[in-house]
């Protein structure tokens, strides 16, 4: 596919990196020649220097032949304009990053009246991700499939777990709750396990199950965390605003600590239910006074990654049950692996995930559709949800044990008529099924048939 990326910033560069590996023809437009040079040197892409909303530049970048235009500059207006121009020139699909809360309220208008295929708001998406984790605090990360019917939770099983030295095939006998373990991270290694895989202490496991089964499984393991009541958000930026807005519908108490007085006033006007505290969020005395030791969750959302990390470590030291750290720089996320910071969210990864998922879905042949796609275990594996629509697929009606899958591919879940099937050897795949597949990231599964040898 031909993909045109306008703006090589945080989200743009992540997208270039991810999409260029997937064998797309990528053209990058940015006003900064240095950034373009860098992109061309590091990835197999073409670069155009100039304003992405200008007709001549878009023509030069051959926007008329592009399948997808992704406008991710730091200006909302420019992104929308670039998409409109590209659309008129003849681009098939347009994706604009729009982050201002004012524009976000008119998403429907942007999509249907202006013909944008997708409008993505990194801060909103990040807030939504944090919200999901808060709703199920036992998990480090929680992804949902098939409109929430299936969830995949990333959980650290900790020291002295009853799962230590358990083979996956013996899991049901031991716990008496049906779940599928889709991926396991042990130190730097990632496994997509088979039945004879043996779990060890401190493994990070990715569990696929319904919400109810997941809760019961974690209760049986003794790592289930109760619902959170007092949420402390440090840093009152856009993510904090969206998140507090989502939480105001629940009965959680939200405290936001913000260093800018003017912003505090704005927040207190926009969020009447939240408690807004004016002060420096890295001041230990202030945090103590505002009750960090009594908080159930601490969410540092400040602008500087390092401060967020330190704050999370501090909260963990004081036994705050849940911390969710926002980190922009993805290389820091890998470094964090060795430190116990709890959950980590990265706005650019969340955004890139959404866009890549969209691109992947466009690519499928008619037979199967990628409904959902998540990058898991530090981008080392993918979890994909397919909707099977073609009744001529060769895999249909054959028991799974007779199918030859590629190395390290796991069929984690089948949803048929709203019922969840944890697949065993005798199960089959039928038309209309939603199938969740876990694969190593380097496989780039595009359509369902790709999972077969």
């Amino acid at each position: 596919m031909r993909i045109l990326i306008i703006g090589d910033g945080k989200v743009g560069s992540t997208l270039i990196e991810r999409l260029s590996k997937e064998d797309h023809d990528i053209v990058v437009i940015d006003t900064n020649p240095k950034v373009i040079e860098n992109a061309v040197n590091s990835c197999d892409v073409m670069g155009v220097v100039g304003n992405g909303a200008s007709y001549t530049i878009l023509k030069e970048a051959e926007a008329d032949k592009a399948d997808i235009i992704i406008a991710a500059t730091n200006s909302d207006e420019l992104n929308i304009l670039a998409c409109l121009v590209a659309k008129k020139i003849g681009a098939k699909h347009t994706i604009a990053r729009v982050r201002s809360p004012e524009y976000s309220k008119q998403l429907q208008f942007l999509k249907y009246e202006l013909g944008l295929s997708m409008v993505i708001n990194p801060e909103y998406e990040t807030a939504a991700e944090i919200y999901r984790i808060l709703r199920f605090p036992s998990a480090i990360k929680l992804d949902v499939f098939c409109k929430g019917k299936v969830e995949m939770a990333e959980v650290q099983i900790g020291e002295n777990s009853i799962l230590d030295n358990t083979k996956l095939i013996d899991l049901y006998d031991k716990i008496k709750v049906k779940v599928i373990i889709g991926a396991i991270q042990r130190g730097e290694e990632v496994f997509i396990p088979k039945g004879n895989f043996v779990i060890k202490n401190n493994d990070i496991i990715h569990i696929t199950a319904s919400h109810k089964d997941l809760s019961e499984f974690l209760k049986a393991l003794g790592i289930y965390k109760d619902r959170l009541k007092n949420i402390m958000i440090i840093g009152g930026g856009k993510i904090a605003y969206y998140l507090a807005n989502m939480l105001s519908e629940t009965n959680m108490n939200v405290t936001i600590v913000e260093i800018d007085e003017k912003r505090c006033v704005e927040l207190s006007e926009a969020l009447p239910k939240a408690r807004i505290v004016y002060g420096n969020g890295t001041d230990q005395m202030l945090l103590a006074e505002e009750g960090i030791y009594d908080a159930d969750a601490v969410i540092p959302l400040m602008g500087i990654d390092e401060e967020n990390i330190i704050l999370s470590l501090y909260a963990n030291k004081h036994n705050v049950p849940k911390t969710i750290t926002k980190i922009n720089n993805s290389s820091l996320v890998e470094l964090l692996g060795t430190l116990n910071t709890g959950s980590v969210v990265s706005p650019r990864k969340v955004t890139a995930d959404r866009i890549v998922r969209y691109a992947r879905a466009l690519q499928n042949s008619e037979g199967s559709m990628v409904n959902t796609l998540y990058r898991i275990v530090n981008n080392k594996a993918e979890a994909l949800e397919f909707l099977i629509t073609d009744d001529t697929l060769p895999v249909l009606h054959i028991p799974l044990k007779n199918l030859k899958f590629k190395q390290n591919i796991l069929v984690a879940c089948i949803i048929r008529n709203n019922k969840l099937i944890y697949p065993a050897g005798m199960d089959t795949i039928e038309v209309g099924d939603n199938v969740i597949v876990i694969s190593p990231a380097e496989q780039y599964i595009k359509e369902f048939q790709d999972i077969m040898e």
Partner: protein
Amino acid sequence: MNFKMIFHILGKVLYITAILMLLPLIVAFIYGEKDTYIGFVVPILVLLSAGIPLEIFKPKNTLIFAKEGLTSVALAWIVTSLIGALPFYISRYIPSFLDSVFETVSGFTTTGASILTDVEMMPYSLLFWRSFTHWIGGMGVLVFILAVIPKTDMSMMHLLRAEAPGPVIGKLVAKMRLSARILYGIYVLLTVILIIFLVAGKMPFFDSVVTSFATAGTGGFGIKNNSIAFYDSAYIDIVLSIFMILFGVNFNIYYLMLLKNFKRAFKNDELRWYLGIIIISVVAVAINIYSIYPNIMESLRHSFFQVSSIITTTGFSTADFDQWPMFSKTAILLLMVIGSSAGSTGGGMKVSRIVILFKSVRNSIKSMANPRSVSSINLSGEIIDSKTEKGVLNYFALYMLIAVTSVVILSFDQYDGITNISAVLACLNNVGPGLRAAGPLGNYSGFSSVSKIILILNMLIGRLEIYPVIVLFSPLTWKRR
């Protein structure tokens, strides 16, 4: 909430109160009042047995913040009042426990409102304790603790802010403990000077001491049924009038004088307003009551005494001002509300708040007429920031709300409106005597239990300047966040 620390502070307050209670016990020994021994010994034992364990077990986390400061101060005052009531109750001189509590709260809050119909039948030790509570309450138990405890690693500023009167709290010197010591030093010195003056005026020694205590705390418990009128001495009247006014002045000013910084001391706007209000009131009332008294000197003497007694919220009386003309009575009610200076031992709204209030109102009128004008409030050459200004306005609103609510609850009682309003104002402003049934010659024994509880709360709210008590009873404080 750091409950352990709140209880630790409470422990300190309890055992210090026990030590202070030894003084009236000594008085009881001196006068051989055997029937009151037990009344003091029991509360002392209660205080020590509760206070010492709490004091010894020091929590690891000594961090306290505004919330803990406000609640521990309010709790400390309520607990000491309840235990301080025991001597009256156990010795059976005040048979009802509620009345004993009323009397003690009235003492500690320096109100001076009494439920006793005949003070003169009380034994010396109880009279001493009654007036001594004024003296302790005047400057504050916690400030006293700050002054005497060896070393503080606690953030005591929150405690001081909660207990000390006035809209803005200034430390005298960098060290909290030293500031508290200087305050108490000035306090003790002035009290001793007053005792000497009174003894020189041929007042009996015991009377001089307890009257000085009541004056220093601006409390106003008399030990005679007709208060200071009993001595019928122009000298005593004038000495007391002057000292009442002195105790109604911000103690920081005395510290400035001690440092020989007279210029800054007298540049204080609050002091000027305070003295100005007194002079105008004295003259106006003296003219108003001229017809009652034989000569102008006599009416000036009574006017001076009464005005000083009321504006400093002491509540001594040399004359039954309930018999005075309506204007004088109205002036007295107004003076009650105004009260003394911030940082003094007196009660009321405080002159500085009134000044800020007036300037704020003036500014708002100004900006109505000239919408583009920008104005600020200036007090003693310093700009009052809008946060303090808003705080004062809110304080006034809260104050009125409490006063009105109390009057409404009191209206279920047997008394007329003037009695109720004056009783609420007298208690809320820590004055003591009101008008009519609650007047200088009357007392509060006739009120129902509900009314007494409301008046007790009013006294505490008035002395602690509303917020600690409200915060203590607010569910928001206790909610874990």
